[in-house]
């Protein structure tokens, strides 16, 4: 022990320090209770932070998927647009129908 600590504590050592078993038990319970509360608080805060981060990630994912979905929808619409269909029709060699005849199915037929 350093000289300084000896200088500070030698008076205390020489004093009488007594505690009843009941007081000791209460003190222990108090310290244990406080430790438990602090530990629970820390667990709660860390769990909240982890959940918050998870929510943030899920929201990011949701917005990302929403963007992807919108983009895909536009691309599908472009691929199936009337102008694109016209191009495909010409490529496939289709010709306009010159004469359209409506047929009346026979009564009782399928």
């Amino acid at each position, binding site marked *: 022990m350093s000289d300084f600590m000896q*200088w*500070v504590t*030698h*008076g*205390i050592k*020489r*004093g009488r320090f007594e505690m009843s078993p009941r007081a000791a038990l209460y003190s222990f319970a108090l310290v244990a209770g406080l430790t438990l509360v602090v530990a629970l608080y820390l667990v709660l*805060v860390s769990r*909240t*932070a*982890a959940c*918050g*981060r998870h*929510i*943030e990630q899920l*929201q*990011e994912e*949701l*917005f990302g998927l*929403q*963007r*992807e979905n*919108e*983009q895909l*929808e*536009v691309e*599908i*619409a*472009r691929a*199936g*647009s*009337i*102008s694109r269909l016209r191009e495909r029709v010409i490529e496939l060699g289709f010709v306009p*129908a010159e004469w*359209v005849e*409506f047929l*009346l199915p026979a*009564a009782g037929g399928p």
Partner: protein
Amino acid sequence: MAEGPRRRLRLLATLLIGILLVIVAQLAQVQIVNHRFYKEWRDEQGVRTIVVAEPPRGAIRDRDGHLLAGNAVLYSIEASPPFVVDVEATGAALGPLLHAPAAHIEQLLDSDDKWVKIVSPVSKEVGEQVAGLGLRGITILPLWAREYPEGTLASHVLGFCNDVEGKCFYGVEGFHDALLRPERVEWEGPVDLYSEPIPWAVGHGVLPQRGTDLVLTLDRTVQALVEEELARSVQEYQAEGGTIIVMDPRTFEILALASRPNYDPGRYIDFFSQKPPPFEDPAVSQQYEPGSVFKVLTVAAALDAGLVTLETIYYDPGWIEVGGQVIQNASHAAYGEQTVADILIESLNVGAAWLSTRMGPDVFYRYVQAFGIGKPTGVDLAGEISGQLWLPDDYEHWHDANLGTNAFGQGVAVTPLQMIAALATVANDGARLRPRIVAQRIGPDGTVSILQPVVEAQVISPQTARMLMEVMVRVVEEGVPQARVEGYRVAGKTGTAQIPVPGGYDKEGTITSFVGFGPVPDPRLIILVKLDRPKTSPWASQTAAPAFQRLAARLFVVLDIPPEGMAVAEAAR
């Protein structure tokens, strides 16, 4: 205890208490005395208002669900210079991707600003490539860009959006902007050094909602056929422009609406150089004198008021004087004894003026207004105008002669939509509904609101409407064979109108139009064709009527409307 240690203990305790008091005093100073100052300082540094990722604008679809206006993703490449670790390396990495000189990017990253925009917007692919680099201090912000996958199709119906300013104009985009616009949700809370919300404060509570989706009454196939026919007619008859509207007269749903010149709403900036830019929809925002098509309303009013029957005979000397103005037939000929039905079949101006003077202004204008002339139809398209109808109580503009000229569509101006809605009233047993272009609204939560037709007025009785329809069939069969559609009973009326200019009428050009519907007696289609200043012929029977015939023949097939004999056979089964 000896005096020495006791003194030392007291000294130590005093020292500790003194330190404690200083700390308490400092805490009181910070927490109580200067509380407001420190709170504001902390809020300034640690609390941010962040826009929770902006959701997309509502989509616009045709009646079968085909996408007409959607949203594509672009990115904005931005940076926070204080957090950029290696300016040179970052500039070198970004330069080739963003097609920008590395030196320019380095200059931006070296600035004292807290936030700089490097390039915006860039394509989705480039944005994702930049994100993949994982550069410190560089942020890739997603942006929405309005996309029109059908190109120029239905441009006047849709309107367009300025993505930079976030404003939309014309058509459905302009009219329903508030509905289509997504909800903007802001979150305010503590953030970390990188302005990111600290994890335990993340729960935003309310997630931003996308805009309401709109399902139109438009049929993109019908729209494409209409645009094809309009382009053909404008070219074939060398017209300056034109409009075609197709409606279902049973519901007043607009199946197609096209005008020329048109534009590509996705590239609207390229069309600003045109004089005037073709953004305004001529179908609702421009008016014209309808000419003889208007005679249908005059005859309808006189029949419904019980003043005449279709067989009532009058004498046509070739002219009539109304309010000091001499009115003649378009052919300048005298027709002698004619029936009221002949006023439509022969398109006689003198007969129409004779009818309106018999009715008098009160009855005539009451019916004209009931047909919706002189006020907006209430369609959900931006920029609709009222047209122009002077009434007898307007002493400044209305003259006695107006009663005669208005009867055959002169001195009165309508929009094409007003005119087709008025004639659709005849095809719909005399009931005028509100024309509509939006069929359904789909909310962000998927709730579907189906919009029902709105009856504006029972203008004429169903009996009058049926009589008129039969006369209009005779107009096509006896007067305008160019509009006949083989296999179908079609009703219609031509209109060849002069174009008013200051001091009179333009001697050079005309506006030709044809409004027809069929199959009679239960019309499922009504079509208005209007051509501006056709050069091959000034007459509607030579221009608008054949355009109607070609279009109607195709649409009857496309919309699965069987020809007359077949319809009867089906009904008999």
